[in-house]
């Protein structure tokens, strides 16, 4: 269905080729998952399938890409629109019309589909993707999961043979991600669609995949999931656990891993509990004074109540994960802590002196609290990493070289002359973090920090967070990433519709929730284990003992 023959691609002004000599075949009806580190050329490969690369982006493509018998060399993207449906990472940026129903029909209109067939297919797509209830709603009022399903539906109505998805769940909370993945699975099983999707959070998709395509430095390999994951640079936690424990065949799902781990769990049950409890230090951690708090906080936008009444305190040395659905009020809470949103009632206090951030001058604010927004790049505007660091020093009257030293301690070896736009996602996050830390605020807030990070990037990031907490910073991060929470956070706060639902140590809050529990904890249930390292340590200790 999709065939790459000796494809190489070089963008102008880059040192090496982005794709080199790719040979890849994806047969009809397959669900293939494309994995690779950030910046390894995943998006380029996906966009080459419908001809956006190189027709739209420029660059020199050699070799041939053939989709359903059509060569992208002679067919520009619009001539492939009836064969390939491409869903971009941010669905909102690709919407043309303003209601769900019109968006579903748009692609068919441009292809000149007969009006009666069009009507029928829209109804089918509404049912298939569970959008019938919101059919005449404006796209702006939809939730993240609904938007993503609308975007999938919008390309589906043109009856494409191939569906290409670029990280469809990266911006979604776990529940909404489930919705979207379930919809994709149904398309593969019921309609026999060929699907190629890129995804960072492999734990969600690997068990459904027929094939895995690994891309590394522009080189592409593909094979069955078990084969490819044995050596892939990025793997989900269950696979990592299986690799370290030497389980064969390699488990791909929680179910497989539970079965493979049954003997080890039985052995654990025989031994006293202290061997597992040792892995957790959240109860015994020394915790400092309060550096941020909200007291009966209430936030409204017009008539819409984002947070009705919320009281929370955050202390030095803590890493707190803020979880909840999209639109639950996480961003509102963070924004009120940096004085971007005025509380309707109640009080917000931050910094060592617990001052009110609302209306505070920027230069005073940054010594008390720093926020890394969802689009971390928003904070950067200089032309090079060096300028950005110098600027940060000057802004905070820190001794020159402070920001650069911080950056080196977080992510060493970034070239001074690089433009911030050309940094990888992880490097950019490191730079923003360094800039924010230059004024050494006691409170650091992070909004979805790991959105573009792969597993090695996340691992590095987790280490940085732990170090900052040890230095006495208080870290609050809003995130959907349960695996990150399991490995990094001491305390988890879950909010829904602005109300506090749960607040406690990570192990208690996260394990008890089927939605937020990380994979390892599902595998090791009923034992209180959250990360691969802890699980391996626990199982080895009983094996030796």
């Amino acid at each position, binding site marked *: 269905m999709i065939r790459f023959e000796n494809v190489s691609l070089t963008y102008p002004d880059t040192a090496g080729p982005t794709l080199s000599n790719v040979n890849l075949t994806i047969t009809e009806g397959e669900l293939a998952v494309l994995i690779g580190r950030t910046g390894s050329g995943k998006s380029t490969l996906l966009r080459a399938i419908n001809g956006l690369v190189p027709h739209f982006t420029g660059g020199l493509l050699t070799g041939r890409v053939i989709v359903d018998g059509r060569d992208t060399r002679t067919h520009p993207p619009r001539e492939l629109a009836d064969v390939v449906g491409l869903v971009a990472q941010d669905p909102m940026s690709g919407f043309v019309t303003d209601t769900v129903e019109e968006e579903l029909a748009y692609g068919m209109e441009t292809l000149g589909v007969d009006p009666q067939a069009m009507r029928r297919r*829209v109804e089918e797509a509404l049912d298939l993707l569970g959008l019938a209830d919101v059919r005449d709603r404006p796209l702006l009022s939809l939730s993240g999961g609904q938007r993503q399903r609308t975007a999938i539906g919008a390309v589906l109505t043109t009856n494409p043979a191939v569906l290409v998805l670029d990280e469809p769940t990266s911006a979604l909370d776990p529940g909404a991600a489930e919705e979207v993945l379930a919809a994709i699975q149904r398309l593969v099983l019921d309609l026999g669609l060929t699907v190629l999707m890129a995804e960072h959070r492999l734990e969600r998709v690997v068990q459904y995949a027929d094939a895995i395509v690994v891309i590394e430095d522009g080189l592409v390999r593909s094979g069955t999931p078990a084969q490819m994951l044995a050596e892939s640079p990025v793997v989900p936690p269950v696979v990592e656990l299986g690799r370290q424990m030497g389980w064969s065949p390699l488990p791909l799902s929680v179910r497989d891993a539970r079965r493979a781990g049954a003997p080890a769990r039985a052995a654990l049950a025989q031994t006293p509990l202290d061997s597992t409890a040792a892995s957790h230090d959240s109860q015994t951690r020394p915790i400092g004074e309060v550096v941020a708090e909200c007291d009966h906080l209430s936030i409204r936008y017009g008539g819409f109540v*984002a947070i009705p009444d919320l009281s929370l305190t955050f202390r030095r040395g803590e890493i707190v994960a803020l979880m909840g659905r999209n639109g639950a009020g996480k961003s509102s809470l963070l924004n009120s802590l940096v004085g971007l949103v005025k509380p309707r009632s109640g009080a917000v206090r931050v910094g060592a002196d617990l001052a009110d951030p609302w209306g505070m001058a920027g230069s005073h604010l940054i010594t008390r609290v720093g926020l890394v927004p969802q689009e971390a790049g928003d904070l950067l505007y200089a032309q090079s990493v060096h300028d950005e660091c110098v600027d*940060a020093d000057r802004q905070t009257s820190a001794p020159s070289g402070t920001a650069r030293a911080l950056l080196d301690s977080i992510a060493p070896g970034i070239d001074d002359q690089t433009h911030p736009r050309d940094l990888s996602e992880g490097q950019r996050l490191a730079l923003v973090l360094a800039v924010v830390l230059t004024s050494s605020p006691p409170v650091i807030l992070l909004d979805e920090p790991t959105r573009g990070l792969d597993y090695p990037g996340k691992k590095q990031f987790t280490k940085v967070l732990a170090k900052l907490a040890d230095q006495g910073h208080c870290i609050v991060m809003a995130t959907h990433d349960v695996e990150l929470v399991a490995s990094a956070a001491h305390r988890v706060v879950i909010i829904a519709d602005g109300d506090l639902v749960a607040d406690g140590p990570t192990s208690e809050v996260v394990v008890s929730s089927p939605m937020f529990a990380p994979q390892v904890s599902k595998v090791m249930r009923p034992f209180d284990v959250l990360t691969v390292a802890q699980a391996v340590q626990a199982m080895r200790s009983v094996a030796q003992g």
Partner: protein
Amino acid sequence: MLHPGAWWVWALGLAAAASRTTNPLLLILILAVAGLVVTARKPDAPWARSFTVFLKLGLFVIAIRVVFQVILGTPIGDHVLVALPVVPLPTWLAAIRLGGDITMESIIFAVCDGLRLAVLIACVGAANSLASPTRLLKAMPPALYEAGVAVVVAMTFAPQLVTDVGRVKQARRLRGRPSTGIRGALGAAMPVFEGAMDRAVTLAAAMDSRGYGRTKYLPARVRHFTAALMLGGLVGVCIGLFSLLQTSDSPGGHQEVGEPFLIFGILAAALGMYLGGKRSIRSRYRPDPWAIPEWLVSLCGVAAGVGVIAAGRWEPLSLSMPISPLAWPALPLVALVGIVLAALPAILAPELPVSKSLQRQAPAPQLTEVAA
């Protein structure tokens, strides 16, 4: 829902009527008719709230017109209200007169003249709040569709730009930099434009991969001929409308050339659009039907225009406000009947269906993103 084109025909009929008269009785009647229909049949959508904005704009226009008359106008009649000194101007500016007596007649003349423009604006405003812009786009002839998409996309970008400015300003504050004042605005401009460019490119890629711009092959000769026809036609229509809408007593009126130009223009443009449409393979999802209610509504609007024009033919003086000497304006029967007919859509147009899912769902906008 009524076809948006029907509302536009109705509103243009009213506007044509308003443009031909300075008779305040007729003008106020037209305004009342427009207001009545808007209140009766306006849907509950953001774009439907624009009618009051247009009314305010109209008031502003009248005020400006009066101010200009007072400062620069030649006095008409002899009912002096205030006597102002005339500012002496050099001889080479003799055509302009600054200051001087303010007469009742000149004020009334200015108000009536301004009212004509204000009512015209109100008619456009009525169409704007009765007909959805996106539905109007759907009803565009295929030849104009692609240009229409560009306009609509541009319109959705404006609010996005405002959101972006807010976001960048917040980011500057988080870096401890000035976020207000000139320096703040300058610092915010660059990232905002970069963001807008990025989004435009993403959207273009998305539209391209969804088949936007797929065309059938037509020989180059046909394409050039089509373009020439459309352009010539539009110019013809403009000249024709301009000459026709000039009142007979205004200087430089060339009504006799108006009709042939208009007819030629419409024919050429229609042919051009027909040929241009041949290239498009686009089909329409649930097109708005043009049925009896649409005919009725548009005919009602046309009636107003025809009524006033007919009154102008038979009793030309009845359409203008008698200024010198001042008198109560006449009320031509034909025009009256036409305008009253234009009020009928308030009852004739079908009532709006209430959207089920909108009713069920409380309006909870995703404001977290605006705040983020």
